[in-house]
């Protein structure tokens, strides 16, 4: 909906008061200036609403001045489109690395800085962390990203849907199913088609397998960073079994390009369905023992409990979803609240805790593992027969009116990290405008807030418990 600047500001103050939750902010280049899009959803609901504001002279009223959670996305879009946010609280460039970055000054007796990255001692994604510390205590952390900026959204614009769908699946490799799912649903909504029931059930199974694999990996990695490598190797074995199961059943370990707009590309045979069930039963028996090990290792508990506490207030204001939000009292899960197939027919219970520490984020993952298994079992038991894919309407066969009609769709999908938002505008079979928003956009500022007052040596542990994506934000 096109709005004027007054409504725009009113929407921003709605975000600030918490009446609505910020979802995404992006810009679209037009022949005459730019259009800024703001997506939000009412508190507790998964129904996303869009507001659009024309910025003919490349100026627009800042959202971040009312609602700081929008700051990173606002800075990113200003860099990409050469826009200026009026009255922005933080006009520093974000993706543009051409000028030296001015970190916020922290002064005081004995305060010094520790720069870490973007090249790290281990093999991880590139990001720069600037710690202002006093001794071992962190006073302030500033995260600098953008090192993997590859203009993925720009690469998608103007291209055919199938090409763009492949790119969508490559925004963040660990969430390739969730991204492909979100993109597919947005395109389907725009074109007014529906994926067949068998396809949606298969999408659900793939999404849950992806969640299982990543949660196993995360649980192990958190314990590893807490200085307990035994847990890491044991969960790595479980993760590997899920990946191999995916490779056997769907032909790709990460199930990349298996979800396409209209449906899915790969069917699940009855034999493979049985394999999924037996593997899950086996895994479930194994992880129960692992969680007992986690709970009974006092030295590990000492590391994770109370570390990296995220205030539920901040989690709410930032609109943190996923395990980060749910560990800090946020009762939101797109599978239940945005209610998309195949989850619309399932009873999704959302585990949430209020402790907000590393331990809580780990326990949310553990609870979600159980839930994913239940979901997969239900989907397999009620697997409908039928086609795998609904063909997309051929642009050549459209009527003249339809041909000139650009159509919009969006979707909110629960990936393993949290809710992934996808928005597309399709015109004659080509992507005109696209936005894919990773939940990590809110995890990074949440991490900056949660780490204050912790000690430097605990940062890797806290960071891993958030596990924000670098690539997912460096769009």
């Amino acid at each position, binding site marked *: 909906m096109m709005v004027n600047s007054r409504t725009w500001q009113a929407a921003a103050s709605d975000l600030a008061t918490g009446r609505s939750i910020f979802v995404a902010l992006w810009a679209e280049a037009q022949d005459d200036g730019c259009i800024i899009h703001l997506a939000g959803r009412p508190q507790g609901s998964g129904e996303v609403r869009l507001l659009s504001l024309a910025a003919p002279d490349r100026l627009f009223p800042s959202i971040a001045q009312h609602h700081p959670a929008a700051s990173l996305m606002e800075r990113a879009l200003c860099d990409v489109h050469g826009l200026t946010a009026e009255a922005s609280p933080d006009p520093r460039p974000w993706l543009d690395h051409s000028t030296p970055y001015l970190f916020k000054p922290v002064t005081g007796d004995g305060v010094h800085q520790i720069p*870490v990255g973007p090249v790290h001692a281990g093999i991880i994604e590139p990001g720069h962390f600037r710690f202002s510390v006093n001794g071992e205590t962190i006073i302030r952390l500033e995260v600098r990203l953008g090192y993997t900026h590859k203009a993925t959204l720009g690469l998608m614009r103007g291209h055919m849907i199938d090409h763009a769908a492949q790119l969508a699946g490559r925004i963040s490799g660990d969430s390739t199913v969730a991204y492909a799912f979100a993109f597919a649903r947005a395109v389907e909504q725009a074109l007014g088609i529906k994926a067949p029931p068998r396809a949606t059930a298969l999408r659900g199974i793939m999404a849950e397998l992806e969640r299982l694999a990543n949660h196993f990996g995360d649980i192990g990695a958190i*314990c590893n960073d807490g*200085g307990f490598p*035994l847990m890491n190797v044991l969960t790595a074995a479980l993760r590997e079994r899920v990946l191999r199961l995916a490779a056997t059943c769907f032909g790709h370990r990460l199930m990349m390009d298996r979800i396409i707009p209209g449906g899915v590309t790969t069917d699940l045979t009855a034999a493979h369905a049985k394999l999924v069930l037996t593997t899950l039963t086996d895994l479930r028996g194994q992880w129960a023992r692992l969680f007992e090990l986690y709970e009974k290792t006092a030295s*590990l508990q000492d590391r994770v409990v109370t570390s990296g506490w995220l205030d539920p207030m901040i989690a709410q204001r930032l609109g943190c979803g996923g395990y980060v939000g749910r560990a800090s009292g946020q009762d939101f899960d797109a599978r239940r609240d945005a209610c998309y197939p195949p989850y619309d027919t399932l009873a999704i219970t959302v585990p949430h805790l209020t402790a907000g520490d590393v331990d809580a984020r780990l326990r949310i993952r553990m609870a979600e593992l159980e839930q994913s298994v239940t979901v997969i079992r239900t989907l397999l038991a009620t697997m409908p027969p039928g086609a795998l894919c609904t063909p997309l309407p051929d642009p050549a066969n459209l009527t003249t009116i339809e041909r000139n009609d650009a159509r919009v769709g969006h979707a909110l999908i629960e990936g393993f990290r949290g809710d992934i938002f996808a928005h597309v505008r399709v015109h004659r079979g080509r992507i005109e405008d696209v936005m894919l928003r990773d939940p990590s956009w809110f995890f990074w500022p949440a991490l900056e807030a949660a780490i204050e007052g912790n000690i430097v040596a605990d940062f890797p542990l806290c960071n891993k418990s958030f596990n924000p994506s670098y690539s997912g934000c460096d769009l």
Partner: protein
Amino acid sequence: MALITPLLLQLVQMALVLAIAPLLAGLVRVLKARLQRRAGPPLLQFYRDLAKLIIKDAIVATGTSWIYRAAPYVIFAASWVSASLVPSFGTNLLFSWSGDLIVIVALLGTARFCQMLAALDLGTAFGGLGASREAMFASLAEPAMLMIVFTVALIAGSSQLSVIATFMHSGAAGLRLSLGLGLVALVIVALAETGRFPVDNPATHLELTMVHEAMVLDYTGRHLALLDLAHALKLTLYMSLIACIFVPFGMAGPGAAPASLALGLLAYLGKLVLGAVLLAIFETAIAKMRVFRVPNFIGAALMLGLLGTLLLFVSATL
């Protein structure tokens, strides 16, 4: 002859610790990997790494002084000499009479001081971070070590390791509470000084959690080879020390026949393997501590050492 045999044994001892230190470190790595159900590196990987590092160019960070370049040699020399002072297979070592336990503590202290100085010389955040943590731990570990030395010396009547080993081996010491306290304290100090769990993680790649690794992060080539070897020597030293004081069985005394020397060597290697197994199991079963918990941990060693010494003043039989 009276001088040549100890000298010969001393030279053998020097060569022995240097030769087996990488093997011992490699063995711990392999055992840990197996306990974690990983294949792990080959047993001899440490030697290969050293060979690789020695032929590589040593790149020295810009802005560093001669301290940074000299430190690896000093650290290595101090570690090697102190490891050679601990009787392993036989007590009849030439240098043993010139260097006692206190000298060993002092040599290790010198090595640490140089390490910290070099890390600070580097001027990076990680060097400073590692050095400050090392200083925090060492300020407790060194007095704890001295307290252990006093406890043992009061019982054996000497601070010379060959005398202590002979005394302990003779059975004259008997079962003593203070020795038990000393053993626990020494194990804690050994874990802290050799950078093992729960104090430091020798395998970590997380810069922010490192202690020892943070200080050597910028070293390359032969400098790094020397530092790695010195670190491995330190592990051998502490295991030998525990074996020498608390389980000196099988050690060959002065004037021993070659057969008993060979037996002493076998016993020594057996003790090291046992030590490596225990260390690997311990490191697998526990998580690393928070940095600020470590002073409590090492502080416990200090208190135990102090208690051991005080008990001996209360009664010489405790």
